[in-house]
C-alpha cells in the first residue's frame, strides 16, 4: 500500500463524503441497489398489471364498435339484472356455501386432528404431514377421475345438493390449510405451555380450550381465508362433475355476456387479494409479536 494514497485530512473528508453519502450503508452482500430494485419490480409489476388493466378496459367496451360505455357496469344495478343474471347469482351462492362448508371441514376435521397429533401422538406427525401433502402430487384433474364414481354413491346417500362438493374441496385445500395451522403450532411452545398448565392442575381439555386454541387463532384464520380463496377459484372438479359454482358459471356467462363475466372475475380477484392481504398482515403480526 503506497503512502501516496494517504490523503490530507481535508481531502480525505470530502472524498469519503462524496463517495458514500451519509446514511447509506456500504453495499456488501446480495442486496440490489435501490435503483436496481425499483427497475426490476417496476418493469415486472407493470407487465403483470397489463392483463388486469386489459380486463378493466374490456368491461367498458361497447361491443366491437370500438367506443366505450358504462352500460355493462350500470346494467349490474338495473332492476332486471337479478333476473338476467339469476344463474350467476345462484352460482355465487353455491360457491359461498361451498366455501363455508369447506372451512367447516378444516375446522372440525383437520384442526382437531392436528392438535391431537401434535399433543398426544407426536410420532404420527410425519404421517399426517405426508397425507396432507398428497393432494399436490394427486392433482384435481386426476382426483376427479376417481371422484366421479365416489360421488355417484354420495349423491345416493346425501342427495345431489351443492354442498356435498365441499368434501372434495376439503381435500384440495388440505396442503394449504395444513401449512397455515402447522406453522402456527410450531411457533407456540405447546409442550411447555401444557406442562406449565398441568403442574398448575389443569386437565387436558382445559389446556386445549384455554391455552392452545387462543394461541392458534392466527393460524386458524389464515387456514380459513386461504381455503375460501381456493374454493372461490375452483373450476376443475365442479366442471367435470357437472356442478355449478362461480367459475363454471362465469365460463358459461362469458359465452353470452363476456363483459359481465369479466366484471365478476375482477370482483373475485379483488376479494381474493383482500383475503390474502389479511393473511399477510396476520403472518407479520405473529412475527413481530414473536420478536418482541
Amino acid at each position, binding site marked *: *500500500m503506497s503512502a501516496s*494514497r494517504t490523503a490530507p*485530512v481535508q481531502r*480525505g473528508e470530502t*472524498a469519503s463524503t462524496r463517495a458514500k453519502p451519509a446514511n447509506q450503508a*456500504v453495499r*456488501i452482500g446480495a442486496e440490489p441497489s435501490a435503483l436496481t430494485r425499483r427497475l426490476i419490480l417496476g418493469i415486472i409489476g407493470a407487465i403483470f398489471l397489463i392483463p388486469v388493466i386489459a380486463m378493466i378496459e374490456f368491461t367498458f367496451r361497447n361491443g366491437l364498435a370500438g367506443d366505450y360505455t358504462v352500460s355493462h357496469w350500470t346494467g349490474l344495478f338495473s332492476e332486471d339484472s337479478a333476473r338476467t343474471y339469476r344463474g350467476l347469482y345462484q352460482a355465487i351462492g353455491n360457491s359461498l356455501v361451498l366455501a363455508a362448508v369447506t372451512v367447516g371441514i378444516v375446522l372440525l376435521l383437520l384442526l382437531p386432528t392436528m392438535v391431537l397429533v401434535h399433543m398426544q401422538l407426536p410420532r404420527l406427525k410425519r404421517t399426517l404431514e405426508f397425507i396432507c401433502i398428497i393432494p399436490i402430487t394427486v392433482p384435481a384433474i386426476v382426483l376427479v377421475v376417481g371422484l366421479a364414481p365416489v360421488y355417484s354413491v354420495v349423491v345416493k346417500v346425501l342427495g345431489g345438493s351443492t354442498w356435498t362438493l365441499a368434501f372434495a374441496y376439503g381435500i384440495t385445500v388440505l396442503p394449504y390449510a395444513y401449512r397455515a395451522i402447522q406453522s402456527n403450532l410450531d411457533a407456540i411452545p405447546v409442550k411447555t405451555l401444557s406442562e406449565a398448565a398441568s403442574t398448575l392442575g389443569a386437565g387436558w381439555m382445559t389446556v386445549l380450550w384455554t391455552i392452545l386454541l387462543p394461541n392458534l387463532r392466527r393460524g386458524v384464520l389464515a387456514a380459513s381465508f386461504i381455503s375460501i380463496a381456493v374454493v372461490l377459484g375452483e373450476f376443475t372438479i365442479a366442471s367435470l362433475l357437472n356442478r355449478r359454482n362461480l367459475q363454471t358459471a362465469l365460463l358459461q356467462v362469458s359465452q353470452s355476456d363476456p363483459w359481465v363475466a369479466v366484471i365478476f372475475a375482477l370482483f373475485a380477484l379483488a376479494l381474493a387479494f383482500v383475503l390474502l392481504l389479511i393473511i399477510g398482515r396476520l403472518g407479520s403480526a405473529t412475527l413481530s409479536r414473536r420478536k418482541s
Partner: protein
Amino acid sequence: MTTTLTESRTTTAPTTGATVHLSAVVKAFAGHTALNSIDLEVAPGELVALLGPSGCGKTTALRSISGLESIDSGRILIDGEDVAETPTNKRDIGMVFQAYSLFPHMTVLENVEFGLKMRKVAATRRRERALETLDMVGLTKHRDRFAHQLSGGQQQRVALARALVTRPRVLLLDEPLSALDAKVRVQLREEIRRIQTELGITTVFVTHDQEEALAVADRVAVMRDGRIEQIGTPEELYATPANAFVADFVGLSNRMPAELIDGTVTLHGCSLNLLGASMPDGPVLALVRPEDMFLAADGIAGTVISSSFLGSLRRTRVRLFDGTVVAIQHEVERHPLPGEAVSVRLKGAPVSALPPKHKK
C-alpha cells in the same frame, strides 16, 4: 461481578501488527449520531476493547474500521494509510462476528481456507496453512464437519481461525463471545488472548461485558452515546475513573447519599477525595466500591440482609440505618447471618460521585 485483575498482561510478543488510527470519525444514521467524533490510536500488537452499553456506537466504530460501514467525516488510518477509499475486501483485516457467520455449505476446513482462496493461494499451500491455523484453535479433528454439527464455542473458534489464516494486519472482534455460555465464554476469551499475544496481531474487541473487557484488553475504551468517555488500562479505569459513568459502568459500585463540601465528598463523617471532574458543592450520590468498605467493631450501623460465598471472598448486603443498601466485600472467614446487626466502615479510598437525582 468479580474485580480480580491478576491476569498477566505482558505484551512481550513480536509486534508484527499494524497501527490503527481513528481521528475525528463521525457517523450518523437517520437522525441518530452513532459516532460523535471518535479519536482512537491502537499500537501494533495491542488489544483494545471498546466497551459500552448497547447503542453506544462501539459496533459502528468497529464496522467503520472494517469498511462494512462508511463514515461521514474524519479519517481512519491502518498502518498509516487512509482507508477511506479502500473497500472491505482490500483492507487486509480479519473479523469475527457475534454468531452464525460460518458458511453453512462448507466444511470447517473449507471455511478456514476461504480467505486464502480469495488471495489465490495454491491449493496445497492453502490446505497446509488452514490446518496449521485450525490446530491453533484445537479443532483439527473436526475439519470435515459442517457448522451445524459444531457447538457455539466451536463455531466461534473456527470463525477465529478463518479470520486469522490470512495473517491480517488487524483483527476485529464484534462481540464474539456474547452468544456463548458463561463457562465457554471465559475459556474462549483466554484462548483469544493467548493466540492474539502469540501472533502479535493488532486487535480491536467490542463487548458490552465489562468483566470481559477488563480481563483480556491491554487498554479499554469506555463508550457512551457515540463518544469515548475514557481510555486506559483496566487498572486505570477501575482505580481512577474519569467520571461517574465510567465508575458506574466498570466494576460494581454502591450508591450512597453524601455531601460535597469544598470539592471533598463527606460520607458518614468520612472525608473522601473526589475522582474525575469537579462538581458544584451540595448533595451527591457517592459511588463506593464494595472492597473499599469493611465490617468493623464500630462505625455505621446496619443490618445484614444476605451474604454470599464467592470462592476467594464473600459479599454481604447490609441495610444501613438510613435505609441505603450496600454490598461489602470481605474475607470468607467472617460469616454474617441475615438479621445480624453489624457496623460498616469506609477504607477512605477516593470515590466518584453522581448528581443526587441520577437514575441509571
